[in-house]
């Protein structure tokens, strides 16, 4: 069992509670002992990085410092945007002693423990796809996906920029595919799986965002997917909740079920309703739960 600090981020605390719930149900089965961080805030989602960049750095240094204080070396995230924001700050703090000293002086001035630069930020996807988690996965996913066709959707900020993320080839990632296969599903391939869902600008430029969002859903449908799976709650929100707006603007029926990574494995592992919380999805997941008679 590996002890990891767990940073759930904003959405899993709010509109995507089902992600937090299914992650907590799944983690122990994959050998992860989660230590949930409490004295932490939003990572800034790229927005604070742009509005108040120095504050962004300090907020993320504070999260890293509290993760380090738990005595673990791994800070686990369940969101692409949190992953990039934390890794970007961590890269700066680890590679620049003078900068870290200044930030630490500020952290200590407000009562936060200083950050020594010993933490590695890893997404749940990476922890499952490498090492012990992947070994345990096949046993955990005993009920299996019975050959369901699943479209992996990576999103952006778990792949690019690869100099800050670097877990896998940003153009030919395979971690989600391997997990889908290990769960007894059939991963389907389509070009937009590494493209943007439009979420960062869905409030400010909805038309542009929707023109991005249609691509992966349309391509996954054409490739015959029963459902899509994503490691990011922001991608999930746009793919799931904004799908109705796409239906309205295109006049087409889409009805593509969207699963969080932890839910996909949860289904294969035979999790209960209370652990999966599919009722919180906008697009019904019945098309796949019926097939699996969950």
């Amino acid at each position: 069992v590996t002890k990891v600090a767990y940073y759930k981020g904003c959405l899993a605390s709010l509109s995507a509670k089902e992600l937090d719930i299914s992650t907590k149900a799944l983690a122990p089965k994959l050998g992860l002992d989660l230590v949930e961080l409490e004295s932490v805030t939003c990572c800034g989602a790229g927005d604070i990085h742009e509005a108040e960049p120095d504050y962004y750095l300090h907020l993320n240094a504070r999260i890293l410092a509290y993760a380090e204080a738990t005595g673990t070396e791994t800070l686990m995230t369940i969101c692409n945007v949190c992953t990039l924001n934390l890794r970007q700050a961590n890269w700066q703090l680890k590679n620049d002693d003078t900068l870290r000293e200044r930030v630490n002086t500020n952290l200590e001035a407000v009562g936060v423990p200083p950050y020594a630069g010993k933490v590695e930020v890893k997404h749940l996807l990476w922890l499952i796809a490498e090492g012990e988690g992947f070994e345990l996965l096949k046993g955990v996913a005993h009920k299996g996906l019975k050959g369901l066709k699943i479209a992996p959707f990576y999103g952006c900020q778990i792949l690019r920029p690869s100099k800050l993320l670097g877990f896998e080839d940003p153009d030919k990632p395979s971690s989600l595919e391997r997990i889908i296969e290990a769960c007894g599903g059939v991963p389907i391939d389509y070009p937009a799986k590494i493209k943007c869902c439009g979420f960062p600008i869905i409030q400010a430029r909805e038309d542009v965002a929707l023109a991005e969002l249609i691509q992966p859903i349309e391509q996954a449908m054409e490739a015959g997917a029963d459902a899509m799976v994503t490691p990011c709650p922001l991608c999930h929100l746009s793919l799931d909740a904004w799908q109705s707006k796409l239906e309205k603007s295109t006049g087409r029926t889409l009805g593509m079920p969207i699963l969080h990574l932890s839910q996909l494995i949860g289904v294969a592992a035979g999790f209960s309703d209370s652990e999966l919380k599919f009722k919180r999805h906008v697009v019904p997941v019945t098309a796949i739960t019926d097939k699996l008679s969950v």
Partner: protein
Amino acid sequence: MKMALKIWRFEPKTGEKVLRDYEVDAPEWATLLDVLDIVKDQVDGSLAYRKSCRMMICGSCGMRMDGAAVLACKTRMYEIAEAGHVPVISAMGNLPVVKDLVVDMTPFWEKMHAVQPYLQPGYADPGETEHVIAPQQMEPIHKEALCINCGCCVSECNSMEADPEFLGPAALAKGMRFVGDPRDGQKIERLESYSQEHGIWDCTRCYFCTQRCPKGVDPRDAIAKLGAEAMKHGIDRDMGAKHAKWFVTSSKTTGWLRETELVPKTQGIARSIKEIPFAMQLLKKGKVPPPVPPHVAKDVDQARALYDLVKQQGRDGAAGIVQGEKALERIEFVEEVERREQAE
């Protein structure tokens, strides 16, 4: 050694688009551009592509290999051929194809012109002597100045694909190159102009530009710097800027994003009212978390205190997009020079 390629050929006269196979003998040190030259010399003289310097500085030979924009002259073929892979070569994306691998760069240059990619002198006439700039003063825009206008970033830009009018990563990075230039006198006007529709706030943060840039310009970082500079100077009327500011407010008050209030804070009340039917649909699924009572993070007062503290330290704007403390030292040096110049 044998090197094989598949090339998407396009013949404008007939509109024919076809994927053709090629295999040639090429030296082990050959780049993609060398292999294309051999194909053109020995196999098919009608193959069209652009090239000039062959050393990664003219920016002519941008094209796609297996769907990803590259400079042909920077891409070595040995390992690809050794692995037995046959890459698919095609023209860049987001620009109209003229023939085979040649794209029409007109939209690219129009956007470049739109950001006024030349100095708008704002310094006092030095008279008989030249205007001296210390290397450190140019350091903050070092990355942006590396751009060779190849278009690899534009080719892959997800926002531009959805909104062809988006200024895009190359033009905006060029904009930052002048916003950050100590000699330029139109900084505020530039920031106002770049903050309009199809500007800074159109960027969807897909990071394809940064991933693909063959010169390390990091256009997404440049766009973030423009956003930070605009907001530092109070140019924050765009919905994108309001969206960003709400995250700051949220982090100081509850620690977590105040998600439900994000819509009216970004779009304004009038526009948000139109979203009520959509919101009701989400509400039924628990996707509209009630703002009251707020979901408050433990020890959020520390975040608030940190905000106050860093604001006093004054690293607002692009200076705060930290490129490492050494870069900050240089920025401080620049400010010192500017103060000295003003005093003189």
